[in-house]
C-alpha cells in the first residue's frame, strides 16, 4: 500500500514537472515572438478609446505618491485618460496626497468609497469606481505599482488590435528585489510565474490569468459580468474564469510593464500569500463544482492549472515527504530505495534548469547570485509554500463549514526610493 501511494505521489510530482517544462518552452517561445506584431499594431493606434485607470487604495500613504508620479508620466492622450484613486476608508494621508496630485494634474481625480462599498476590500472599491466612471476601457493598478511610461499604451494596443480579447494583461516586476533574501526569492518567483504560467499557457492554450494589476479590460465586458465578485479574495482569478466562460479570451502582452513592491518580511508575505492561496482555492472549487454548467470547456486548462498546483501537486509532495519520513522510523517496505533519492535529485535539477532558463529572459537576472538563490529557494521558499497551501486550505474549509465572512487583508507597504523610469 505504501509503495502504491509513493508511486502515485512520484507520478503526480513528475507529471507536474513535465507540465512546467512544457510551459517553460512555451514561455520562452512567446518571449522570442511577442514583439513582432508591434510595428503592424502601431498603425491602428489612431482612434484611441477613452481609458480610466483605477487605483484602489486603503492606507497607502507610503507608496501612493510614487505611484501617482508614475501615472503622471503615462504616454496616452491626456484628454482620453483619467486616473481615479479610489480612496477606500483610509485613515492615513492617502486622500490628502492623492488630492495634491489631482490639483496638479487635471486627469487625476480622487473618489471616496461610500457604503455599501466602503471598507469592504478591493472588489468593492473597483465596483464603486465602475459605477462612477464611463470610459470605454478600464485599467487597474495596485497602489504600490509604478507602471512604465508606455504600459497603458501597450495594454490598449492589445485591445485595439485583438477584438476578441476581453482583457490584456501586462507583466509585473519587483521593484525591491535586492532588498532582502525574501524579495530576491519573490523576484525569481514572479519572473517564473510571468513567463512560465502566463507566457507558457498563453503560447500553448491562449489562456492567461488576470493578475490583479497592470491589466486592461473592456468596460462593456465588466458590466456584462456584473462587476467584481466581492466574496472573492482573489478577485482577479475569479474574474478571469467568468471572462472565459463568456467566450472571450485574455491576451498576455508583456510589453506593458509595471514595477511593484513585494513583502519584505515573512509575516507580511505569509498573510498576503495565504489570501491569494485561499482566493485561488475558492475559485477552483467554485467553478469545478459548476463544471458542467460552464459554457467554455476550454477554461478547464486554467482551472486544471490551479487545481493541479494547489491540490494535486502539493498533495503529491506532502504524501511523498510523509512516507519518506515515516519510513525512517518504521519500515514501510518501500521498494523504491535509492531510486527515490535519485528522482528527488533529478526533480531538484529540473527545477534549477527550468528556473535558470526562465531567468535568462529578463536582462541580467541570469547571474551567479541568482543561481545560488535558486538552489537555496528550493529548500526554503518552495517548502514554505507547502505549509502555506495546507494552512490556507484549512482556513478555507473552516470558512465554508462555519459560514465565516471573508476578511480582506491589506498588505503592508515599505518605504521605497523613486527610481523613475525603469528599463
Amino acid at each position, binding site marked *: 500500500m505504501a509503495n502504491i501511494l509513493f*508511486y502515485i505521489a*512520484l*507520478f503526480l510530482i*513528475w507529471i507536474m*514537472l*513535465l507540465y512546467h*517544462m512544457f510551459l*517553460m*518552452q512555451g514561455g*520562452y517561445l512567446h518571449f522570442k515572438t511577442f514583439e513582432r506584431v508591434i510595428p503592424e499594431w502601431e498603425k491602428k493606434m489612431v482612434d484611441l478609446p477613452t481609458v480610466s485607470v483605477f487605483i484602489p487604495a486603503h492606507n497607502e500613504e507610503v507608496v501612493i505618491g510614487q505611484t501617482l508620479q508614475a501615472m503622471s508620466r503615462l504616454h496616452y492622450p491626456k484628454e482620453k485618460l483619467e486616473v481615479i484613486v479610489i480612496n477606500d476608508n483610509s485613515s492615513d494621508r492617502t486622500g490628502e496626497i492623492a488630492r495634491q496630485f489631482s490639483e496638479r494634474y487635471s486627469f487625476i481625480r480622487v473618489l471616496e468609497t461610500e457604503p455599501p462599498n466602503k471598507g469592504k476590500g478591493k472588489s468593492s472599491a473597483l465596483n464603486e469606481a465602475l459605477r462612477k466612471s464611463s470610459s470605454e476601457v478600464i485599467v487597474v493598478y495596485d497602489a504600490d505599482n509604478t507602471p512604465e511610461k508606455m504600459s497603458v499604451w501597450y495594454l490598449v494596443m492589445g485591445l485595439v488590435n485583438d477584438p476578441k480579447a476581453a482583457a490584456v494583461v501586462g507583466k509585473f516586476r519587483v521593484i525591491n528585489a535586492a532588498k532582502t533574501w525574501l524579495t530576491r526569492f519573490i523576484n525569481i518567483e514572479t519572473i517564473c510565474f510571468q513567463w512560465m504560467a502566463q507566457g507558457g499557457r498563453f503560447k500553448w492554450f491562449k489562456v492567461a490569468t488576470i493578475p490583479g494589476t497592470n491589466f486592461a479590460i473592456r468596460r462593456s465586458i465588466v458590466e456584462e459580468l456584473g462587476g467584481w465578485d466581492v466574496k472573492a479574495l482573489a478577485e482577479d482569478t475569479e474574474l478571469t474564469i467568468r471572462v472565459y466562460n463568456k467566450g472571450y479570451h485574455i491576451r498576455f502582452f508583456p510589453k506593458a510593464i509595471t514595477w511593484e513592491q513585494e513583502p519584505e518580511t515573512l509575516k507580511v508575505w505569509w498573510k498576503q500569500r495565504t489570501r491569494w492561496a485561499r482566493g485561488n482555492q475558492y475559485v477552483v472549487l467554485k467553478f469545478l463544482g459548476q463544471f458542467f454548467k460552464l459554457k467554455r470547456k476550454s477554461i478547464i486548462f486554467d482551472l486544471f492549472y490551479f487545481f493541479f498546483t494547489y491540490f494535486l501537486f502539493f498533495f503529491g509532495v506532502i504524501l511523498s515527504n510523509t512516507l519518506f519520513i515515516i519510513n525512517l522510523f518504521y519500515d514501510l517496505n518501500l*521498494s*523504491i530505495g*535509492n*531510486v527515490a*533519492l*535519485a*528522482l528527488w*535529485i*533529478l*526533480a*531538484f*535539477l*529540473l527545477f*534549477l*534548469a*527550468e528556473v*535558470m*532558463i526562465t531567468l*535568462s529572459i529578463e536582462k541580467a537576472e*541570469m547571474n551567479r547570485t541568482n*543561481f545560488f538563490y535558486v538552489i537555496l529557494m528550493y529548500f526554503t521558499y518552495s517548502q514554505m509554500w507547502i505549509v502555506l497551501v495546507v494552512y490556507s486550505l484549512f482556513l478555507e474549509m473552516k470558512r465554508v463549514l462555519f459560514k465565516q465572512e471573508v476578511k480582506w487583508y491589506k498588505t503592508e507597504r515599505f518605504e521605497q526610493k523613486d527610481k523613475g523610469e525603469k528599463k
Partner: protein
Amino acid sequence: MGRFLNTNKQTLLLITILILLLQIPSYFMWDYEREGILLYIFLILLIIVSLILGTVTGLIFSLIFIFIIGSALIYFNYTDSAIANSFTMPIQLFLVYGLMLIVLVLIGGRLQEVIIAREKLNQRLQEEVRNFIAVDVETGFDNNYRMGITITEEMMRVDRYGKSFTLILLQIDHLKDFNRLYGAKETKHLLQGLAQTMDKAMRLTDKKFRYDTDRFAILLTETGGDSIDLVIDKLASKIKTHQLLSGKYVTLTFRTGYFVYEPKLDTSYEEIISRVESEMVSHEL
C-alpha cells in the same frame, strides 16, 4: 582597447575554469564503467551544445536529458527491471554530477556569449574604422565609401533646393598592365600625378573621389549638362600625357561618362553609377 583585452581575459578565464571543472566528473565517472562513461559522454555533448548554441539551448537539452533519466528510472523501478538494480552510483556522486552538469552548461553558454559579443565588438570597431578612414591613401581623394554618402546627400539637397549636379566617371585603361610593365612605384607616381592634375583642372568646389583601383569620379555641384563634353575633353587633354619617374613620357587612355542629376529624378546612387559605367566612351587621344 581596454574592453577588448578584458574580453580576451574573460574568455581565457572561462575556458580555464571549464577545463578544470571537467576533470572532476571525469575523475569519478570512470570508476562506474558503463553508466559512468555514458553519463560523462552526455555531459560533454551538452557542454558542446551550450558552446555552439548558447546557454538557453544547452539548458533546454539538459532539461530533456534529466527528465528522460528520471522517467526511465521510475519506469524500470516500477517494472522491477534488472536495469534499475544495476544503478550502482552513490547518491552523493549523482547529485554532484547533476550540479556539475548545470554549472558546466552555464559556463559553456557564458563562454559562447562572450565570444559572440567579442565578434560583434570587432565588427563594430571595423565599421568605425571604415567610417573614420574615408580617404584614399595614394591620391588623397575621398574613397568609395565617402563617395556614396556624399552623392546621396547631394541628391537629397538637389531634390529639396533645386538646381542640378553632374557626376563624371573616369576609368584609366590598362592600369594593371601599366603596373606590370613599370612597377608599383611608377603606378603610385601616376596616380598621384593624376590626382594633382585633376585638382588643378577642376574647380575648388568640385569634389573628387577615387572609388576603385582604376576609377575616379568628379562631382560638379550646381552644374547642368551644358558643355560637359568640353570639360571632359579639357580634363582628358591635361592628363593624357604622363612623365614617368624615369623621365620617359607615356600616353594614357581613358574611358569617361557622365550623368546629370536633376531634382526628383527617380533613380538611386547605385543605378547612376551602373548606368554611367555601362555608357562610358573611350577617349583615345
